[in-house]
C-alpha cells in the first residue's frame, strides 16, 4: 500500500514489523509502570497491615463521593479511547476527533475534581506538612480532628503517614494522567491537521493502552485509599 510508505520508518523491514515493535514496546513500558506503582502499593499495604485502626479512621475522612465521580469519568474515558482506535483505523476523522476530544475533557474533569479535592483536604487540615494539620473541625464533629484522634486512640503520626501515601500515590497518578492528556491532545492536533492517517493508527492504539493502564491503576488506588475505613458522611 503506498499509504504505508509514509508510516514506515527506515530501519524496519515492513509495516507489520514496525507495528509489532511499537505495540510490544508500549506493553513493556506498561510493565515498568506496574512495578513502579507496585512498590508504592507494597509500602502502603505494609503500613495498612501494621496500623489498621489509624488508617481506617483517616480513610473515612476522605471524599469518597468525588473519588466515585472520578472513577466513572476515567472509566468512560477509557471507553472513548477504545472507540477512537476504531475511528482511526477506518479513517473516520470526525468521530476520531470527537472521541479523542471527549477523552481529553473527561481526563481534565478528573484533574479538576482532584484539584478541588486537594484544596478541600487543605482546608480540612489533612495535608501533612501544613500548620493546620489536625486543627480543623469537620462537618458532623464536635471537636477538631486532633482531639478526635486522641479520644479514639489514633496516632497523628500514623495519620500523617497515610496522608503522605495518599498525596504521593494520587500525585504520581495525576502526573501520569496529565502526561496522557498531553499525548492525546497531540493526537487530536494531528487528527485536526489530517496527518493521523489510517496507516498510522497504531499511535492511537498505544496511547489508548497507556490510558487504560492509568485507569487500571486508579481502580486499585481508589479502594486502597478511600475504602480502607467507614465513611460517616457523603458530601461534596
Amino acid at each position, binding site marked *: 500500500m503506498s499509504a504505508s510508505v509514509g508510516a514506515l520508518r527506515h530501519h524496519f523491514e515492513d509495516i507489520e514489523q514496525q507495528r509489532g515493535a511499537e505495540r510490544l514496546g508500549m506493553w513493556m513500558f506498561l510493565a515498568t509502570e506496574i512495578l513502579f506503582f507496585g512498590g508504592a502499593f507494597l509500602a502502603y499495604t505494609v503500613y495498612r497491615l501494621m*496500623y489498621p*485502626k489509624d488508617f481506617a479512621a483517616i480513610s473515612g475522612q476522605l471524599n469518597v463521593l468525588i473519588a466515585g465521580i472520578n472513577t466513572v469519568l476515567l472509566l468512560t474515558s477509557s471507553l472513548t479511547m477504545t472507540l477512537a482506535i476504531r475511528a482511526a483505523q477506518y479513517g473516520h476523522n470526525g468521530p476520531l476527533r470527537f472521541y479523542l476530544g471527549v477523552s481529553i475533557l473527561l481526563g481534565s474533569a478528573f484533574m479538576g475534581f482532584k484539584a478541588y479535592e486537594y484544596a478541600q483536604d487543605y482546608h480540612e487540615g489533612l495535608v501533612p506538612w501544613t500548620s493546620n494539620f489536625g486543627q480543623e473541625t469537620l462537618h458532623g464533629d464536635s471537636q477538631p480532628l486532633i482531639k478526635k484522634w486522641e479520644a479514639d486512640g489514633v496516632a497523628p503520626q500514623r495519620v500523617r503517614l497515610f496522608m503522605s501515601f495518599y498525596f504521593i500515590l494520587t500525585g504520581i497518578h495525576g502526573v501520569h494522567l496529565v502526561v496522557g492528556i498531553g499525548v492525546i491532545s497531540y493526537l487530536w492536533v494531528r487528527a485536526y491537521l489530517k496527518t493521523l492517517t489510517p496507516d498510522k493508527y497504531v499511535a492511537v492504539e498505544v496511547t489508548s493502552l497507556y490510558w487504560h493502564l492509568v485507569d487500571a491503576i486508579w481502580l486499585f488506588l481508589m479502594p486502597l485509599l478511600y475504602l480502607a475505613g467507614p465513611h460517616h458522611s457523603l458530601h461534596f
Partner: protein
Amino acid sequence: MILQSTIMPEQASEMAWHVDNLIWFITGVCGVVGLGVYVAMLVFCIQYRRPDDRIGPAPTPRILGSHKLELIWSVIPLFIFLGFFAWGAYVYNMALHPPEDAPEIYVVGKQWMWKVQYPGGQRVILGQNALTFADDVGGAGYFEGLMVLPVGRPVKIVTTSEDVIHDFGVPAFRQKIDVVPGRYTTTWYLPTKTGTYDVFCDQYCGTNHSLMVGKLVVVEPAEYDAWLAGTWRPGPANRDKTGVDGSLAHQGRQLFMKLNCIGCHNVQNSKAPVLEEIYGTRRPLKGGTSVVADDNYLRESIRRPREKVREGWEPIMPHFDAAKASEEDLIKVIAYIKSLKKGDTPKRNEDTPAPVGAETEPKAGPTSAGEGKQ
C-alpha cells in the same frame, strides 16, 4: 606485622566453633571445585594452544555439548549448595534461639557509643573513643569501659538503637546483630575462652562509625559474679564510664512509681491489668486476636498503648514517647515487669520501695572498694 592469630581469629564462644567448622567445610569443598576448574583450564590452555598464537581458521572437532555432563554439573553442585544451606540453617537456628534461662544484658546503641546495662545495674559505655585503634597496641584496654562476660555461661544480648541502625558485632564470637531503632533485636553468646575481644559497629552509621568500637573481656565466673555484685571491676581505665546503681529491675520499680504506672496497674483499685507474671504468656486482645507478651510487645504497650488493648479493659492508657521515657528507661521498666512475681505489686501509696529482685543498693562511685585486677 602479621596478624596475631594468622590462620584464624580467636575462637572464643561455642557459636564460633560451629561457624568456623562451617566456613572451613565450605572452603574445603569450594577449594576442591575451584582448583579443579583451574587445573582443567591450565591443562587445556597448554595442551590445546596454537603454535605461534595464530589467528584464523583451525581444524577443531565440532563438539556441541553433552546432556549427560550438563546434568551432572547442574545436579551435583545443586546438592552441594543445598548441603551448605542445610548446615548453615542449622547454625543460624542455634544463633537465633538463645537458651530459655540465659540472663539478659541490654545494649543500647547510639551515635557513636554502646550503652551496656546489666541486670544487676552495672553500666558500661563502649565507644565514644577519642583514641583510635592505632593507639591500642597490644589491646591493653585503652578503651574506656570494658564489657564483662562470664566464661561458660550463656548470656542473651537484647539491643535497640536510639537513633540510626547500628550493628553489635563480636568477631571472636562470630556473631553480629543489627541494632534497629524502634524495636528490640536479640542475639546470644556462650563464651568459652577467657580473654579480651573486639566489639565493632558493623552497620554504617555516620562520621564516627569506625570509632564506635570497644572491648569485651571474658572472665572466670567468680570474677563475673563479683562484677555483678559491684565488688570488682576489670582494668584501670574505667573512670566514670561504668557505674552501679542498683539492679535494672530495682530502677524499673522506681520508674514505675515515678511515672505513676502504679496509678492504674495496682491491685486495690485497678483501672488496668495487674502485671504480675505476664511476661512470656499469651494475652487475649480486644477484637479476638492474641499476642505473646515479649519484650517488643511490652515496649509497644508503653509507647503506643491503644494499639493492642487487653481484652476486658478500656483503651485509656496514655502513651509514653521518648520525651517521657527514654529507651534506657523502658529497658528498666520492662526488666521490672519481667521480675514481678505474684503478690509483688506495690501498694498505691508506698513511698519507700524496697528493692524487688535487686541484689544491691546503689553504691558510691569509682572510689569504692575493689579496683580489681584485669
